């Protein structure tokens, strides 16, 4: 179980990953994008993989983060750190509201509520043209700079420098959330996923935990949206549409539910594949659909789990089996 690994291991793993990534993928922009969507997929995984809540509103948090960051960078003199922090907090706040209402219903009605909130967000962004640019998106977003008083001032105009901003943010967020799912709170979430009634009976305030997990999910998803807007220098309306929710969901499922590493893998594979196929065969989404069906039917643990068990079989050690087992 990854739960048995010390925090240092996760920090190390994430750092190594973020350090190597730009050298193995075709471009730094793609590497940045991978880290950003890995965070978004992690946000989705917290809800679906750990707590069993299927949310169709992830794009709302993602898009909101993008708009917040974009607007602050255009209209307010905030530094990078402040912009990201406020976007994160705002995302958490929105998620708490969505969560508060959505979790009053279970099953399909829950999904529908998250979908309704997502669509509301979309149409509001669409209509609030003076603020969000409506259909054209929010243009000329600038990357704020980072000032360390009396010492230095960094701006992040180049793709390389912005990659490292993203990488540092990624490592921090990832470690924090890994810590979260390894904590007692994480076990409660898993208990809720397995059997909500029993978790309730044991005495957990299931509703509070669900709202909390929404808050974390909204926070990290919004953070990733903010980074995305800064990366593109642009916050398109499509950030907040249902297709974005589906893409995030897909990365999450592809990589594997119930493991943050799986979400990273999901983002890597998805974005590499779309980068690869985009020019080769524009209808590659057909494969995507096929893959989604196959994974759900035959590999409910996602790719990560398969990779783990393959690895375990090759090396013959028990260690990785356990690691994979935590993801099931």
């Amino acid at each position, binding site marked *: 179980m990854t739960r048995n690994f010390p925090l240092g291991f996760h920090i190390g793993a994430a750092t190594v990953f973020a350090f190597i990534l730009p050298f193995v993928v075709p471009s730094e922009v793609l590497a940045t994008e991978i880290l950003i969507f890995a965070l978004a997929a992690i946000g989705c995984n917290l809800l*679906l993989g750990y707590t*069993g809540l*299927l949310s169709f509103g992830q794009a709302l948090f993602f898009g909101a983060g993008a708009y917040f960051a974009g607007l602050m960078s255009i209209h307010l003199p905030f530094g990078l750190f402040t912009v990201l922090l406020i976007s994160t907090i705002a995302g958490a706040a929105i998620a708490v509201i969505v969560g508060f*209402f959505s979790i*009053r*219903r279970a*099953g*399909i*009605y829950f*999904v*529908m*509520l998250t*979908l*309704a*909130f997502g*669509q*509301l967000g979309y*149409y*509001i962004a*669409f*209509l609030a043209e003076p603020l969000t640019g409506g259909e054209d998106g929010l243009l000329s977003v600038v990357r704020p700079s980072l000032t360390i008083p009396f010492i230095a001032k960094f701006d992040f105009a180049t793709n390389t420098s912005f990659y490292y901003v993203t990488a540092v943010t990624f490592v921090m967020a990832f470690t924090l959330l890994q810590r979260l799912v390894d904590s007692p709170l994480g076990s409660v979430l898993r208990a809720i996923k397995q059997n909500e009634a029993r978790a309730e009976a044991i005495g957990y305030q299931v509703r509070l935990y669900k709202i909390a997990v929404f808050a974390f999910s909204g926070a990290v998803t919004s953070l990733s949206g903010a980074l995305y807007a800064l990366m593109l220098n642009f916050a398109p309306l499509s950030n907040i549409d*249902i*297709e974005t929710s*589906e893409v995030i*969901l*897909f990365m999450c*499922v592809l990589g594997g539910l119930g493991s943050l590493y799986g979400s990273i893998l999901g983002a890597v594979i998805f974005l590499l594949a779309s980068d690869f196929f985009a020019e080769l065969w524009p*209808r590659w*989404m*057909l494969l*995507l*659909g*096929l*893959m*989604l*069906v196959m994974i*759900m*039917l035959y590999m*409910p643990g996602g790719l990560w789990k398969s990779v783990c068990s393959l690895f375990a079989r090759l090396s013959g050690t028990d260690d990785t089996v356990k690691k994979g087992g935590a993801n099931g």
Partner: protein
Amino acid sequence: MIYFLMGVGLTIIFGMMHFVNFAHGIYYAIGAYICYQFIVWTGSFWIGLLLTPIVVGLLAYVIERVLVRRLYKMDHAVQILITIGVMLIIREGILIVWGTVPKPVSIPPLLSGVVFFGEFAYPKYRLFIVAVAAFIALALWYLLDKTRFGIMVRAGSENPKMVSLLGHDIDRLFAFTFVLGVALAGVAGALISPIRGADAFMGVEALGIAFVVVVIGGMGSFTGALIGGLIVGLVQSFTSGFWPQGTNVMIYSVMALIILLRPNGLFGRA
């Protein structure tokens, strides 16, 4: 009324098999394309309208046999994700077959033009849609409420095991219900094609609204789908009077409100 047709298909399938079909919108799109194709081949919209549900129904039958029947017992989340996969496959299939440019469909000459009600001009074709949808609603009501088949469908939605203990083939009943629901989406697509053409992405919005219709009415309730369709229609025409861009905001707000106030929709069972 198009929303009713979409919604009722969705709700019949959910009510009977507890199956959440996120691919429902794509059957609507493919209905429009197939109607278009028949018009290209035969030159007649009427042939298209008549044959589309049959072709879409056949497609649904194959999909039910190969895939969907394995999903009835699974979790709703799994059903949703898999049917999104199906949606992607069919959508990309449409784009491969018919290309990325949407196909225009013209209104049959018999129904072009407007009728006047006193001062008001109303397009003939839209009246035709309302009439067809009303006819289908009536036929469905008769089928579900008055025939032995309808009794079987309702019984199956409550307790499929007992239906098979009485000697009825529940698998076949499920397959038929799925085909019926999907064929209704196909008809809806064919009907709408002269208004908005055939477009691979037309299903997304339609699916969203169909879900609103069904959720408002209560998942699985036939009356609910009818009333839900009416409510959505009313909210739309009401809002478009003073805030035309805001109709979708209103529709989704109404849905969220109704779910929160009446957990199972207006006519849903627990």
